[in-house]
């Protein structure tokens, strides 16, 4: 039933998942919020944390890769216009539904019925997508649109890969210091151990520190398993649960379930699926200890947001392929072309949906 090398990788997976859940919850680390609030109010606080996380992951994964600590491969998807369309649909869904793939997950742990409904709707989206894949999405979407082989600068540079993040980090430090925006002493002061109290642990954590932690955890996850993704394991859970309802044979006959979601037709619980569950658990523990947990009943008038937003995220993440985490986080960290163009489509979707939702009060950008 389980598919893992040893007990250590299972324990590591559980701990990394709990860590992700805690960091996402404490940092209110949400990609929708990062992009939407930048467009609507030029608020860059969450966005800065996301950028720090991406660069940390780029440095971490390229280092463990060249030192041979990790045998994982960089997830580098083939690309084409399909990524932009998939990203666009996903971007619309995450603004309308109220959260990205990772944001939905940690808020499910905080007790929101709304985000559980987004999750379930995304899963229904996967089932519909898989049913339409052989006759529609494969011949009319992927074959004509996904035409280029995947390329990642970090993967192709091999031994020279860490040079890229090091140059990026050095340049931004020099730039920020010249603008007097980076006062290193003050930053170190603010994270002194003596400043940590139960009150500061219960309050919101600085998004930049959370971004740094996310990059470090994503690197550890790269050592244990591979590329960090949310909707990938979510689709696998959907498949396993769906197979209990309609029978395994039905899924084995479908090329999308049998060859894309579960590679080589192995329908079992893998480590990334365990990470997915422990992330929700980590967010629950963190929210509970911080006084942020509450079973929040969904407003009836917002049910369409959760259902339509979730379905759009389900379809969009299958079409791109990948969610905000595998593209806008891992994909950008690997400097993968698919990551960049999917993120571009996602940003366009967020832009259109944000302007529509803020049509009465207006947007900054």
């Amino acid at each position, binding site marked *: 039933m389980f598919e893992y090398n040893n007990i250590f990788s299972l324990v590591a997976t559980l701990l990394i998942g709990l860590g992700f859940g805690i960091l996402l919850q404490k940092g*209110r680390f*949400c990609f*929708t*919020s990062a992009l*939407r*609030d930048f467009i*609507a*109010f030029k*608020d860059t*606080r*969450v966005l800065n944390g996301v950028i720090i996380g991406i660069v940390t992951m780029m440095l971490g994964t390229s280092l463990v890769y060249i030192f041979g600590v990790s045998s994982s491969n960089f997830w580098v998807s083939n690309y084409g216009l399909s990524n932009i369309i998939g990203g666009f649909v996903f971007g619309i869904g995450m*603004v309308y539904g*109220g*959260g990205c793939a990772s944001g939905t997950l940690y*808020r499910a742990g*905080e*007790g*929101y019925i*709304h*985000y559980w409904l987004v999750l379930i709707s995304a899963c229904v989206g996967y089932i519909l997508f898989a049913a339409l894949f052989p006759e529609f999405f494969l011949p009319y979407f992927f074959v004509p649109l996904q035409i280029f082989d995947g390329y990642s600068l970090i993967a192709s540079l091999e031994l020279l890969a860490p040079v890229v993040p090091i140059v990026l980090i050095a340049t931004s430090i020099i730039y920020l210091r010249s603008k007097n925006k980076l006062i290193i002493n003050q930053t170190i002061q603010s994270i002194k151990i003596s400043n940590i109290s139960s009150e500061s642990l219960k309050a*919101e954590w600085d998004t930049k520190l959370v971004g740094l932690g996310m990059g470090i955890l994503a690197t550890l996850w790269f050592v244990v398993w591979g590329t960090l993704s949310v909707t990938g394991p979510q689709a696998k859970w959907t498949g396993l649960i769906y197979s209990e309802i309609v029978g395994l044979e039905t899924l084995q006959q479908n090329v999308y379930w049998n060859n894309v979601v579960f590679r080589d037709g192995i329908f079992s619980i893998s480590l990334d699926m365990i990470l997915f569950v422990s992330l929700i658990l980590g967010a629950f523990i963190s*929210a509970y200890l911080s*006084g*942020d*947990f*509450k079973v*929040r*009943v*969904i*407003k009836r008038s*917002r049910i369409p947001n959760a259902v339509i937003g979730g379905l759009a995220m389900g379809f969009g993440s299958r079409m791109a392929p990948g969610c905000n985490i595998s593209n806008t986080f891992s994909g950008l960290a690997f400097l993968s072309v698919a990551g960049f163009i999917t993120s571009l489509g996602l940003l366009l979707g967020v832009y259109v949906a*944000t302007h529509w*939702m*803020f049509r*009465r*009060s207006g947007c900054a950008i």
Partner: protein
Amino acid sequence: MEERKVNDEDMKEIEQSAVIIDIEGEVCPYPQIIAREEIKKIDSGKIVVIQTDHVMATKAVPQSVSNDVSEYGIWKSGSGQYKIILWKK
């Protein structure tokens, strides 16, 4: 826009003169949209208190109205309820 610390007693005083808006159950981005509309409606120097159970609102709402607000405060119940106090410029 500065953050002002508020305790339970401050909260009682603030609520006597503030415009109180209950948006329990709303999730992103509706708290921000509602906050922007409500802050426009009131006079300069007045206070809006937004009652919410959305964790993200405590971060996103003050930022969404930062141009119109001189100070903001966050009151936490400890059981998933929050009051966001906005002092209009």
